[in-house]
């Protein structure tokens, strides 16, 4: 199993209600509750990072890996940050697998907005996010979609807090340009 699934996540503002034992120590909530509270945000993070077409598969991989590692998670962990970390690593695995896989020369499909997942709201937005350079895309996904502080975003992307902040700002500016052009007749 990959190392990150054991990663200890520092306590943060996004800390979740955990159940308190009569003795005062905390324990992990039922995993069902984790899915109910974070399923939406993780789906949007996946959409942003791997694009709308692969988002549902990425979501399933993320939650299955999380379920596997869950009993070893410290009960006072920031569960959303932990899930986003797993989603981030799964997205990297996905890109690497795609690079390794031989691609038939004449069958590279153009991404079709919303194809295969017709119910995605704002398909243009998510396609535009998926088209950002990786650092900008990650910074937008982990800060603006997942609401993680820039310090944590920087850790995930392997850069400084300041660089993560710049990448997110550049990403939003680029989205504004792309979507502005598309909106014109």
């Amino acid at each position, binding site marked *: 199993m990959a190392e990150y699934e054991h990663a200890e996540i520092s306590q943060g503002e996004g800390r979740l209600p955990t*159940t308190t*034992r009569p003795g005062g120590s905390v*324990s*992990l*909530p*039922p*995993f*069902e*509750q984790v*899915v109910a509270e974070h*399923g*939406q*945000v993780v*789906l*949007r993070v996946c959409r*942003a990072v791997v694009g709308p077409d692969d988002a*549902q598969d990425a*979501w*399933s991989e993320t*939650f*299955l890996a999380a*379920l*596997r590692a*869950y*009993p070893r998670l410290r009960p006072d962990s920031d569960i959303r940050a932990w899930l986003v970390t797993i989603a981030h690593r799964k997205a990297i695995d996905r890109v690497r697998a795609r690079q390794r896989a031989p691609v038939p020369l004449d069958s590279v499909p153009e991404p079709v907005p919303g194809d295969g*997942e017709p*119910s*995605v*709201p*704002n398909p*243009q*937005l998510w396609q535009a*996010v998926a088209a950002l350079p990786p650092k900008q895309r990650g910074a*937008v996904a982990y800060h*603006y*979609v997942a*609401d993680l502080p820039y310090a944590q975003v920087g850790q995930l992307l392997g850069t400084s807090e300041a660089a993560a902040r710049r990448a997110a700002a550049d990403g*939003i500016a680029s*989205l*504004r340009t792309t*979507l*502005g052009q598309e*909106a014109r007749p």
Partner: protein
Amino acid sequence: MTTPETILAALAATSDDPDAIARLQGRLAEQAASEGLLDVAYRTIDTPVGSLLLAATPAGIVRVAYPIEGHDQVLESLARRVSPRLLYAPARLDPAVFQLEEYFDRRRRHFDLPLDLQLAGGFRRTVLDHLPEIAYGTTASYASVAALAGNPKAFRAVASACATNPLPVVVPCHRVVRRDGSLAGYVGGLEAKHALLELEATS
């Protein structure tokens, strides 16, 4: 869609796709079960004695809970005492639901389900093992159940085993009454105990 505010609002929109989430949750439960990661599956079932929470491990049904026990608290307790790998996953409970429906329709007199009694230990466990010997439609006193369990003087321990029975209805602690026939307490409330005995008496 072109001002930073509208872009940020769209990125942060929370409940945009409830159907997709419901589908994904169902798929997660299936994948978790097939990979051996579904330690506790649960669902609820509507019955004449209220909505019952049913939970099962791969070994068998581990918990039946009445509404007055607080289903959320019961789930939290299962996460703590059995495993936090706990998901809403109705499929594993299908046989239990089928048999409970037959029971409440007066078409079934005893349950034939794999039981996981890990939440009951020691003498309490021994008491629960003997409760199915009390025939459908009849009752037994705390003292006679104590005798069945091999310790005739332990009627208080029998009362406590019944009060903490993790599998009410399926393991018939409702058939244990005071020597004078009055009902004493019940984990699902006296009304439920009365309703079950009434149901069994009139079939």
